[in-house]
């Protein structure tokens, strides 16, 4: 499927730039060109498709779907719908208030808040492009399981008292009748959104793939195995800790991590790092303090972190 891109990369590296093949530099440059073009094409196509789907499911509609569901179905649906919803820490508060005040249960809301940033199309495309569809699928499925279970657990903990009281004092009617998008508007929306995301992530992708290409070419294959191979128990929790401050840079982190995996970091540790980068974000926690007590943020982060660590160990064990 990516054969023409390989041809283009070969031609650019060996003919245009006149770098000798079978050398470290040649390999690194070839790898960089191939991966960059492949990822950018995949990103454009997939973000466009996801945006079109999303134009049919704005948050207001998702809320209407979720507010009528019993809790287990709600957790599953919320996590699935979280996949197609874009998320940035700036939208955490409107989403949280909008959901809870319209009667969506707290556990269901958390399932959504966890799945939405963790399973996003940028992360999926990068995993798909750099690790293949099996790893991308493993990531999606384990992300869903973590979001569903964490939401169910938080729902059972009865922590409504840890939400700031003003949240429940204001209730809103979730059924507002508004115009839908026309077909042309959907396409425009998707094009604009794809352009915005690409504009935002391309520098990270270039740097990530560039560093990755360098590591690929210059570091010995088992360089990191002694520090972060599957035999090292501390690798997974450490990866989760490292991931927390790296929020929103999945675009740069994943290519880098893909190169590290080649040099001996085990797959479960890699998955745990990526989940931590996307799902556990310091800026989001700070923002959520406006609507919930710090204790609830710790409970939320703790449950998700345990889920990620468990996933990391599980896949270190079976992959």
């Amino acid at each position, binding site marked *: 499927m990516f054969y023409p891109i390989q041809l283009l990369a070969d031609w650019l590296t060996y003919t245009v730039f006149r770098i000798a093949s079978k050398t470290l530099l040649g390999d690194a440059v070839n790898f960089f060109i191939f991966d960059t073009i492949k990822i950018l094409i995949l990103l454009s196509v997939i973000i466009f498709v996801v945006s079109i789907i999303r134009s049919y499911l*704005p948050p*207001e509609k998702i809320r209407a779907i979720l507010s009528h569901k019993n809790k287990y179905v709600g957790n599953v649906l919320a996590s699935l719908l979280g996949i197609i919803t874009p998320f940035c820490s700036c939208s955490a508060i*409107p989403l949280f208030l909008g959901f809870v*005040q319209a009667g969506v249960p707290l556990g269901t809301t958390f399932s959504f808040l966890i799945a939405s940033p963790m399973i996003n199309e940028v992360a999926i495309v990068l995993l798909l492009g750099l690790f293949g569809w099996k790893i991308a699928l493993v990531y999606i499925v384990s992300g869903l399981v973590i979001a569903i279970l964490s939401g169910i657990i938080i729902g059972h903990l009865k922590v409504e008292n840890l939400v700031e009281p003003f949240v429940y004092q204001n209730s809103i009617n979730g059924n507002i009748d508004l*115009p839908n998008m026309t077909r042309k508007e959907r396409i425009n*929306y998707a094009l604009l959104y794809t352009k915005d995301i690409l504009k935002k992530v391309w520098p990270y992708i270039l740097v990530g793939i560039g560093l990755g290409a360098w590591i690929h070419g210059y570091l010995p294959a088992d360089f990191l195995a002694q520090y972060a191979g599957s035999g090292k128990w501390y690798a997974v929790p450490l990866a989760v800790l490292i991931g927390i401050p790296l929020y929103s840079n999945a675009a740069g982190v994943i290519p880098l991590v893909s190169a590290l995996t080649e040099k001996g970091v085990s797959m479960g540790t890699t998955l745990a790092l990526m989940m931590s980068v996307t799902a556990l974000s310091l800026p989001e926690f700070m923002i959520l303090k406006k609507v919930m007590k710090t204790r609830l943020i710790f409970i939320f982060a703790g449950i998700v972190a345990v889920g990620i660590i468990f996933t990391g160990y599980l896949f270190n064990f079976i992959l």
Partner: protein
Amino acid sequence: MKIEVIGSGCKKCKTLFELTEVVVRELNIHDIVLYSNDINKIVSMGLMSSPVLTLDDRPILVGILPDKERLKEIISKNL
């Protein structure tokens, strides 16, 4: 009549504001169009996407950037 575009500061919001000004003038409405970046207003209306276009604090368009003709149609329908 109070006409207001509320956004989160995104480019789409600004564009909708400018477009609304044009459409309102073409519809011979003499009220000025207000522009706000106060996301709390969106939240308190129970909405989660931006931009929002309101007529007398009633949302008539949410999260969509329409073309001029459609915006004209939506505004005149809600007058």
